[in-house]
């Protein structure tokens, strides 16, 4: 269901540096102090302005054929998702956002300081990921009580799972109304720092329940987690 999250969401500075393209040397200790000051200033502003909200619903999962699934009345055709959800009988659909504030900060910074707008971009990306990890953790605990486990979350745009599913996922979750998550005509999410995902529920114990990059071909992606 819906949650308005009012605790601060941890922003891992190491990840922020990585998203900004620090190329391996993402150790806050060894980063230029001037830049670190800017980053911590931006992180504070982001904490202040963000309004994290999420919604999720649990649905039975039907396998309609090799590579074709049905969840919450939505038909999804994807080999990668099929592989991810192998053996699951249920799944969560979720949508989360840290709100429109970050977009204001990015726009604002792009006038005054392009560096800051890059930092906000990276810190916002990290914040929404971090928020999704928190939600995943809570959901994992909830299903654990039933002796169940979660597969790593999987989003439209990963592998061959098309972005064209976004309108249906958002409609089923009523995400526009519940958490203020909208789509533009070209299916870009607004606010920009938002995530929709499918999370399989399985009987098999799982090592990783957070995010699945293993099926993605973009091996040089800054956002990749291995």
């Amino acid at each position, binding site marked *: 269901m819906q949650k308005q999250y009012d605790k601060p969401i941890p922003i891992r500075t190491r990840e922020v540096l990585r998203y*900004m393209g620090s190329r391996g040397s993402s150790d806050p200790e060894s980063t230029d102090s001037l*830049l670190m000051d800017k980053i911590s200033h931006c992180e504070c502003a982001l904490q202040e302005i963000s309004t994290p909200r999420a919604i999720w619903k*649990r649905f039975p999962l039907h396998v309609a054929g090799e590579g074709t699934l049905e969840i919450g009345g939505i038909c999804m055709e994807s080999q990668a998702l099929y592989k991810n959800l192998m053996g699951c009988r249920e799944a969560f659909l979720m949508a989360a956002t840290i709100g429109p504030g970050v977009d204001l900060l990015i726009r*604002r910074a*792009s006038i005054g300081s392009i560096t800051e707008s890059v930092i906000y971009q990276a810190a916002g990306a990290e914040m929404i990921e971090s928020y999704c990890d928190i939600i995943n953790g809570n959901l994992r605990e909830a299903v654990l009580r039933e002796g169940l486990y979660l597969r790593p979350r999987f989003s439209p745009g990963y592998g061959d799972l098309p972005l064209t599913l976004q309108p249906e996922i958002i409609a089923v979750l009523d995400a526009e*109304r519940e958490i*203020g998550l909208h789509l533009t005509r*070209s299916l*870009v999410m*607004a606010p920009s720092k938002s995530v929709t995902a499918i999370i399989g529920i399985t009987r098999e114990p799982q090592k990783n329940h957070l995010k699945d990059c293993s099926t993605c071909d973009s091996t040089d992606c800054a956002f990749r987690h291995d």
Partner: protein
Amino acid sequence: MSILDRLNHEWIFFDGGTGSVLQSMGLTPGELPETWNLTHREEVISLHLGYLNAGCTVFNTNTFGANRLRFPDNLEAIVRAAVENATEARKRAGRESDAYIALDIGPTGKLLEPLGDLPFEETVSLYKEVISIGASAGADLVLIETMNDSYEAKAAVLAAKEACDLPVFATVVFDEKGKMLTGGTPESITAMLEGLRVDALGVNCSLGPKEMLPIAERFTKCSSTPIIINPNAGIPRSVNGKTVYDVDSELFSDIAVELASLGIQGIGGCCGTTPEYIQKVRDKVSRLPFRPIERKHRTVISSFSRCVEIGPRPVIIGERINPTGKKRFKEALKTGDIDYILSQGLAQEDAGADVLDVNVGLPGIDEPSMMTQVVKSLQSVTALPLQIDTSNPEAMERALRLYNGKAMINSVNAKKESCEMVFPLVRKYGGVVVGLALDEDGIAPTAEGRIAAAKKIYAEAEKYGIPKEDIIIDGLAMTVSSDPTSANVTLETIRRVRDELGGHSILGVSNISFGLPAREILNSAFFTMAMQAGLSCAIINPNSAPMMRAFRAYLALTGKDSNFQGFIGAYAEFKKTRELYAADLAREAAAEQALKAVPSGLAGNGTGAGHGNAGNGSAADNGTAGGNEAASGNANASGAKTFAGAAKDAASRPLFEAIRRGVAGKAAEETRKALKNQAPLDVVNENLIPALDVVGKGFEQGTLFLPQLLMAAEAAQASFEVIRDAMSGSPRVLKGKVILATVKGDIHDIGKNIVKVLLENYGYEVLDLGRDVPPERIVETAIRENVPVVGLSALMTTTVVNMKETIRQLREKKPDTKIVVGGAVMTQEYADQIGADCYGKDAMTTVRFCDQVFGK
């Protein structure tokens, strides 16, 4: 009897949930409820009958999501059927004389610009279409509800006002902290909706009745318009795949009594509530004594998220967005450099402005379109309310129309012509208007005459239904140098506006000192006097330290700065700055001494070249004495140390270093110093370009990463600004023109902005077409301006097709133009596939590509 005859005279009961009731009748999740108006008429009628029999006064048509975007083919049929079903239900219930059909209007489902991609006027027209159909089908009123975004609410209200004459009610959604999704508060939304003259306003959805108590209370304190509260049946939970709410009808109606007792005028329910809930609410609330809403006489303006009340303390209105006497600003207006104009706004916000005055009038400029562009851009980056400052009626109307809030308007005067132009706009769009105390006879030389003009303005406004609290009288500060009594006359006018008229006042404070030296001294003293005389709003330069000191000191001394927070926050470091400045001066003095002692050839480096502009800081006026003292102390040591470094040492190239490390403030300062001894072009060639080269190469080699490259670019930009001022007017030598654009459908522009900053750094003129740019516009600009390089950015796989189309059109119509593409999804392979000349894999690639094309 119209609903307006009953509103504010008795309790008005609204209906409850629609979707939840229809789902219990078999509507499936994801199915559009409005289709049932045609396919399940009896069910929809029975939904209405349930609420009518429960005793509600106002019930909603099943049209929450009805608009052209969701129903491109059968919108008219759906909306007509909705009103017909409601009419039929009312007939069957025998309530034709005392129940009212509200045409229900919900959000469009799209996010408006700048957050999303739906333009404001398109939103207005989407709503107009629905409302015209509903009104002609026989609805009694328009109920705009569940609005998460004040801008969308404004579009809907304007549409209702323009499409019909029905009463308009509007309710919005808050979270538990009392914030709308886009940041609005009960106070800010009330200011805007009252400005738009809605008939009732309030809150619905998202929260249960208990959580709405504090929000309802805030409404009762700020609203002069009847208040509606329509809560959910508590917080939703999912039980066996079904949504259930945790507040039952008994508890709901008990809390409804508490809500009603706060002094609201209308109550009903939202998600999860049923006729049973409404029945119990009606039973309990109708026994309570009814209290009409009272006029609050508050003078307020608002932005999308902020409300500024005029009265409790003087309000600072930043005057810097104005071309008068500003060469650089005029240039920005002529070249359409919106970012420069915005930066003037943000600087004033940082300096403590409460409101920004916006004046973009300049001969030869299309003022209405420039005003629209600036207002639109400003409200996408700042939450400060704006003051629309223009004498051009079209510019005023267009700005007020798309302003996201209740604006301040500058200005009207007591002349008939002025009233006839301004007041209808204030009436329609809302606003607090500055009334210049002058009339057909000009500016009266006495306070008496100005007060008479003020009274005339109040009286004229009243004819348009504009209350006195929406007028602020300008007492007219006139230069004291041409008439020694003028300051006194102005101050007396201010005092009498407060004491005799019970009104608010405003002054363009700095006008007082025209023609005299050391204007800040007079301005700040006059400012203090005016505040003491009751000045409500001051149009000043908030970047001026003496003015802000006068302001903060006044607040601290008159008990308007609780715990001296504002004062301490601003000046706790005051002493420290003084000392720093003193030390600075000491170093300067020492360096100068040292300079005298060395052969003149070395002086060109600029280290010790004096500090012409250092006095700009907050310690400027009283720092001098201290500085001199310090200079005689340990100055020699530090000065000698700085200077002792040989020319090869990095410290001896402070500008180069400041840029390389990315310290913008220092870079600007060092540039000013360097310009004392070097020609502007030499400063560029010997410091800026080498520093940028070092950083650019470091980035390409992977020893520096993006933020460091950008910080250096920003420092270089700060330096360029100074050089540009120094060259005042003489045009920069540019390498060539480049178009940058994020392609159609894509609203992400950070990558493009990065490339822009770097290209400008490297001496290119960038024509930035923005984001979501159609191919035709890019082609047309490339041809018109004969641009050799076009840079395109796309973030999404879904928009790469538009990039491809843009390239196709460019190749066809402007084949000699080279194309570089970049963005998150772009790869070399992709770039080749869509026929680009270059794949800009990172920020520097595009710069290098342009250097290659332009042969630099």
